[in-house]
């Protein structure tokens, strides 16, 4: 597979038309930033040199008492180093399940899944990604600083460096000065920011974020969107980001994956290469609104398609 086809959709939906448009912009300048290649000899020969996530024909079925639930069905997706990919779609369309499969928290029932050229399990054991859950899930017996320090302790990072990183990441999410507080003494928004700092603390190349800003108010959300965009721009991390908000998806992403439910599948992939140094005001620009419109249409069609 060639590098230019950065993202594949499953061929059964309208999204197939996008294949030609993809990869024409924004890919070239990113190519040189990473000399990274997949780990040797582990993955399929088809991977492009800078792909981080390769998914082919992935499906995942939960066996429940009420019969099987097809949470994911025949997903094809390639995500390159430095991509910011948003997943959007109605509840129950498998966004969380897809992220969890990438994180090796769910086992696919079919298809292939490679992360950094190795299996999802190996990638997890390599500590290749940081995961931000939908709920903050901070440990109540640890202070905020203690919570951010948790992955660092598990990974055996020495104390002095831990303190550096805790301070840096708390500043990044505007929590400086709250290090000695306990999670239950902070608002929900602050807790979620702490959980983001925790995922960033060990500086993973790949970030998996499941509706991280879902519970936050508009102003905090805007602020964190900007911070996240700066961080991504600066560090060239690869981000998989689940959201319910169309403006958020368009503002942050280089690719938007529109999903539809029952069975969960990819309905459309929309390229979204707004200038990298964009600010919040781009949300009024015509090209922004145009993309947002396409996402909205995709969501509508994907939904009615199902009924």
């Amino acid at each position, binding site marked *: 597979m060639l590098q230019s086809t950065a993202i594949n959709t499953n061929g059964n939906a309208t999204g197939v038309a996008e294949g030609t448009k993809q990869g024409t912009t924004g890919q070239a300048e990113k190519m040189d930033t990473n000399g990274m290649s997949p780990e040797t000899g582990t993955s399929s020969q088809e991977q492009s040199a800078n792909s981080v996530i390769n998914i082919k024909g992935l499906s995942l079925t939960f066996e429940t008492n009420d019969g099987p639930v097809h949470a994911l069905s025949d997903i094809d997706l390639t995500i390159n180093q430095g991509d910011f990919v948003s997943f959007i779609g109605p509840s129950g369309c498998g966004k969380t399940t897809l992220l969890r499969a990438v994180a090796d928290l769910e086992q696919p029932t079919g298809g292939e899944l490679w992360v950094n050229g190795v299996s999802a399990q190996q990638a*997890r054991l390599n500590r290749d990604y940081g995961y931000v859950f939908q709920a903050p899930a901070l*440990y109540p017996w640890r202070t905020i600083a203690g919570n951010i320090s948790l992955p660092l302790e598990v990974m055996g990072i020495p104390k002095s460096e831990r303190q550096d990183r805790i301070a840096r990441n708390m500043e990044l999410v505007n929590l400086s000065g709250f290090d000695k507080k306990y999670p239950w003494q902070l608002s929900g928004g602050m807790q979620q920011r702490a959980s983001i700092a925790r995922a960033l603390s060990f500086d993973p190349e790949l970030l998996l974020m499941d509706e991280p800003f879902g519970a936050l108010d508009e102003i905090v959300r805007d602020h964190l969107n900007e911070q996240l965009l700066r961080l991504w721009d600066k560090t060239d991390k690869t981000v998989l980001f689940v959201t319910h908000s169309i403006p958020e998806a368009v503002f942050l992403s280089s690719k938007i994956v529109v999903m539809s439910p029952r069975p969960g599948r990819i309905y459309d992939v929309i390229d979204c290469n707004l200038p990298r140094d964009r600010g919040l005001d781009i949300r009024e620009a015509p090209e922004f609104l145009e993309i947002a419109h396409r996402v909205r249409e995709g969501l509508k069609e994907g939904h009615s398609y199902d009924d």
Partner: protein
Amino acid sequence: MISFRQSLAILSGVLSILALFFPLGELNGEAVSLWSDSGLTAFAIVSMLASVAVLLNRLKGLKADLVLVILPHVGAWMLLSRLDVADQHLASGFWCLVVSSWLMAWLLVDQLSAKKTKTPTAKRFYSIVVPVLFGVWLLLLWELVVRGLQIPTVLLPPPSMIGARFMASTDILWADFQQTFLKAVLIGYILGCGSAFIIAILIDRSPFLQRGLLPIGNLVSALPIIGVAPIMVMWFGFDWHSKAAVVIIMTFFPMLVNTVAGLSITSSIEKDMMKTYAASYWQSLIKLRLPSALPFVFNALKINSTLAMIGAIVAEFFGTPIVGMGFRISTEVGRMNVDMVWAEIAVAALAGTAFYGIMVVIERACTFWHPSFRSSR
């Protein structure tokens, strides 16, 4: 509409008046009237006046505190010193005054608990004073009733007698305490709780062992201690070792069951998080599962502190060297030395309460983060 406070005051006032007309008791076949005792007469009149002042809402604030602190306690002290004015048991006039001063003390407690305290120290002060007052009055009434009605001491000795026995036999009590509490209870408790905790962690990875051990645990914890104790005495001899063994048996399974339950309560998202860090089994045990199991562990520690006391004392009924709290209780009952029995009971109650209290303090320090304690920080 009269308030609760006012109705207490009315009752207390009426009883003070009645006391003026009823006899205190009989001495040499003649009724002793209150009027012959100027101190008690004065007390009855003053407490009647105080009741009226409370009823009319004239007695408030610091003045009310002062009057209610002094009056009922002076009254109680006078009543205690008049316990032998009659040769038979005391009569209605005396009891009117007892109840009247008790109601007055109740008024004081009511007043103190209603106080809106500002500083935490003041809050703490009142939270100590009220139960202390309660305890003091319990003892006062116990003393007055038992001695005033001349209840036989084998049935119930007055607290003063128990106190005197306590003070006179501190060396025996200390030896018993050492034998029963410091040896059997503490050693059994530490071994029982400690081994159960370790075994809970060892069987944590084996659902098979858990399924097998927990029902056996329920069975053993249902065994009557009366059946187990003699067997332990046969196995481990008369000294404290057999009592510690009983304590181990009693404390082991509550701890095992609670720790196993505590280790299983971590939410899936918390465990998933550890998984994303590729944490080892031991890392996630120490950093996640043990801390979240702590509330369960402390629950067992508190239950076991009580069980251990009961176990060690009762086990001594089945054979001991001639020392120990259970031994003392069983032999002194046989000799009708009930005051000594009660002194031992007092030691057991004090030790048990202190033991439990220490566990509560440690629990608070370790699980301050738990929703049930958060407000206190």
